[in-house]
Every structure is written in structure tokens, then in C-alpha cells.
């Protein structure tokens, strides 16, 4: 089952507010992603029936948007800005620190499943460059120390 009965009620309510089912497709995929971490094939098939969209059509929308995940991601998603203001302020140096600390490259997930590192266009935090977003929290200006602090806090929160 893709959604629990409670989730389904909430989903259907959201759908009823939309102009037509198709308009809801991005929000619908995110609804599932917010609860499961990503959108798997079973969910896509279910959605294509629910939204009355051909599966290939829905897939083309899913793969267009960078923040719809069609593969599993780690428990925490790190979105590090690599746009021009952050580049001038040294995002490549702090990215090197992240690479060493996590032992992964951009686009990868740590073997323990804790962190996925993705790129994101300009976070609109150019006055606190270089910047990143971890889960839903914006942080900057980044230093190796600040990165360690933020990642340590994620690990600590998980072990509670």
C-alpha cells in the first residue's frame, strides 16, 4: 500500500482543492516524498492512476524537477549552493571539507544512509555565502567548523 488510510484522506483532501488532478502532480509526488523520503516505482504507478496521467508523462515531470527524488536519499539531505556568489566566497574549499568528512562526492549517499549531498542553484543567501541547506535549515557563511557543527547536530538528533 502506497499510503496509509490517514495519509490517503489528507491526500484526497489536497487533491480536491486543485483545479484538476494533473495540476496536483508535483505536490502529489512531494506528498509521498515527504513521508517516504523518495518516490518509488510503485508510488509512481499508483499516482498515474490516481491523477489520470500516463505513467511516462508523470515520469517526465518527476525527472524534470531536481527536488523530486526517484532514488532513495539519506536521512538528511545536504543542498550546498554552488552558484556564483558562493563560488567567489570559496564554496569549493568548504565542499572539499564536506567531501573528506563524509567520504562521498556530490550526488552520493553515505554508506550508512545518513547523508545525501546534492547541488542546488543559488539559495538566495548570497549575503551569508557560502551557504547550504540541511534538511530545511539554511546555514552560512560556511566554514569547515560550521559544517562539522551542523552535521554533528544531525547525528546527535538521530540518536535521541
Amino acid at each position, binding site marked *: 500500500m502506497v499510503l496509509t488510510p490517514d495519509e490517503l484522506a489528507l491526500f484526497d483532501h489536497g487533491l480536491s482543492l486543485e483545479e484538476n488532478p494533473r495540476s496536483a502532480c*508535483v505536490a502529489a509526488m512531494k506528498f509521498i516524498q515527504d513521508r517516504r523520503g523518495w518516490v518509488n516505482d510503485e508510488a509512481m504507478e499508483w499516482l498515474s492512476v490516481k491523477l489520470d496521467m500516463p505513467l511516462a508523462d508523470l515520469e517526465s515531470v518527476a525527472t*524534470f*524537477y531536481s527536488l523530486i527524488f526517484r532514488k532513495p536519499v539519506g536521512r538528511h539531505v545536504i543542498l550546498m549552493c554552488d552558484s556564483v*556568489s558562493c*563560488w*567567489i566566497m570559496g564554496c569549493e574549499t568548504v565542499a572539499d571539507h564536506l567531501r573528506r568528512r563524509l567520504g562521498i562526492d556530490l550526488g552520493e549517499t553515505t554508506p550508512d544512509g545518513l547523508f545525501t549531498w546534492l547541488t542546488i542553484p*543559488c539559495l538566495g543567501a548570497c549575503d551569508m555565502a557560502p551557504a547550504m541547506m540541511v534538511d530545511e535549515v*539554511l546555514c552560512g557563511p560556511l566554514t569547515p567548523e560550521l559544517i562539522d557543527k551542523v552535521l554533528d547536530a544531525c547525528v546527535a538528533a538521530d540518536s535521541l
Partner: protein
Amino acid sequence: MTAPTPLTAGIIPNGPVISLPEYEEMGGYQALRKALGGMSPSEVIETVKASGLRGRGGAGFPTGLKWSFVPERNGDTGHRYLVANGDEMEPGTFKDRLLIEGNPHQLIEGVLLAAYAMEADFGYVFIRWAYRDAFLRLRHAAAEAHGAGYWGHDILGSGFNLEFHVNVSAGRYMCGEETALLTSLQGGRANPRTKPPFPPVVGLYGRPSVVQNIETLCNVPHIIANGADWYRELGLTEDAGTKLYGVSGKVKNPGLFELPMGTPIREIVEEHAGGMRDGLKLRAFLPGGASTRFMLPEHLDMPMDFGHVEAAGSRIGTGTMIILDDRTCPVGMLHNMEHFFAQESCGWCTPCREGLPWVEKTLAAIENGDGREGDLEILERHAKMLGPGYTFCALAPGAVDPLASALEHFRDDFETHIRDGKCPY
């Protein structure tokens, strides 16, 4: 006397949100009462036209004029849409985030007034996923405003109805292009549409729609409350109002500054942003985000407004400047920007989809010391062939604007990279 700052009054950067009672205390929603209580939609349009307000999202189109393109109702009962474009993703731009996070009610009031002017019955705010705090605050403010009767059925007893929705996107710079944004709202890939027809005539679901930048909409309540003359006089030059200017890069105090339109560039960079960090010199700057042409130190005494920046061959764009200092490699900077544009091309038209990656790879080769003779000619050809008129939308022309100007201003740097086979920075 300090100049008025209507847009950012009461906003503390990264501070608390202005609540509904606080906004009302500051005179909030008075412009809505004034418009609904005694102005016809066309009077609102005329006032905004007379104010000289131009779009703050990049293109600078006169706002009132855009609204006047929406056909009159004349018995047409179908939906009409006002869409606030909060997909702020232009590299180096961070102004709309402040306005939504700091004072979401100001935006809601702007949406309501614009919707009233074009007789829309739906107002959307399209906001990027990464603006989480802005979204949460806006959603809360929308609930407050609905509770107080500012949107919904028969607003303030005027007979005007408006449904208000906040739509959270899922990434992609392309969504900021107005027709691509509409397609995205309809549940598709964010590809652009042919223009004409323009959205005010054929927009969302084929219905009349106006897409407007956040900062632009935030100006509207102040114009309606204080009048067109008051607004015109805020500007120091021919261009009206105040502008939320931004400065990023290696200055002492990067940030946002609301100043009269037409404030000299030097004042923005040296006084408000504190000037360059010690030991660094300003070499060039992008006046309004990554898709504007480089400007030089000789332009610093110019007023930062639409007309003057255009006369200098660039565009005010979003008004958020990116500073290139003398210790940062211009080739590297350009490579970074073209990487962004190549990645964010939606792939809909061939020149952009194929051309931008070629530009990016050529720049990467030059920056990494693998540049070859003839590379600069390849880049120059792309700067021309991806320009206006050759592509479906403005993404590629915007991408090659900084490229063309960099080839002109930093020619020596490119040639040194190719000749020496390495980056000298």
C-alpha cells in the same frame, strides 16, 4: 533626513515575521480598503501606470501597462489569475526572500490589489521549495488574512472574491520564466510557451493571467495608499520608487539595502556594503544577477536605475550586484555561471540545450589549462548565436550576456590562460 523605505519598514533581516496586528498597526490593508471602497479596477491600473512602477524581476516591464493588456470582463465569467513569482533563483539574488520572510502580509495585499485591478478571482504565490521559512510564514499569514476577511468571498463587503493559494515548487531555475511557471503550475515540465499570445490574454489554463515579481507586488499597496506622485518622487532619477539593492562578493558588508531608485552605484557598494575587503580592488560587477553584462569601475558613479544601466550596455536585472575583485579569476567565475545555465536549461529548444554545455566545456578547458587556439572564437560565436531571437525564451540570451561582456573586458585573462596552459589566479 533618511529616505523612506516603504518596502522594508519594520523588517529585521533573519528576524521575526511581521504579524497581522503589527501590519495593520503600520497601516497595512488600508490600501486594500481604499481600493475596494472607492476605486474601480481601471482606476487602480491608472494609478499604478502613473506611478511609473516597472517590474523588479529582471525585465523591467511597466507594471500598470502589463495589467492593462488583460481584456475587460464584458460578461466573461471564466477564471482569471494573478500569479506572484517567488521562484527567486537568479544567481546572486536574495531580495524576495527577505520580503516574504519579513512581511508576508505586504505581499498578500499586493496580490489582492493586483488581482482586483485585473478582475482576477484566483491569486497564486509560486514559491521555490528552498524558501522554506518564507513558505511557512506566508502560509501562516495567508491563514491570518483569510480569518480577518481580507481574501475569500465578498472581501470587506465589496463584492470582490479572491481565492488565494501558495504553491511550492520542486526546483529548477526555469520555473522563473513566466510562461514556464504557468506550465509548471498546470502540472507539467517547466518549458516555455510561444509568445504571443502573452499571458495577460492567454495564460494559466488558457485564461488571462498576470505573472509578477514579488518585489513588484510589494510596491503596489504603498502606491495605492500614498498615490502615484508620492511614488514617483521617491526615485532620484526618471525611474520611480525605491529599490531593494543587494551586494554580494568580497565586500565588507554584503547585504540588502532599500534605497531610492537611481542611487549612485558607488554609494551602494562603498557606503552601504562597506566597500571592498582590505587588500582587494573592485575589478568589475554584474549589476543585477548572473544574466546581466559586466560593468566596470568607470561606471561606479552612475545612478543605479533602468535607463542609466541600459545606456552602459547592461541591465539593472534584479538589482542585486555581484562584485568581481582583482584576486578572483574572471574565467573561473564565468565558468561557474555557464555551468549553472547549462544545468538549468530546460532542453526545450536546441540552441540552448546544445549550445550552453558547449560553452561550459570550452570554459572548463580554458580554466583548467587545456584551452586551444580558436576557443575564444567558439565562445564568441555562441555569444551571438544564443542571443535574442535565436532561442525560445530569455534563458540563453541571459546566459551569454555576461559571456559576451567578459570576452570584451577580460580578453587578456582568457588569452593568458590559453597561452600559459594554466589559471594564473
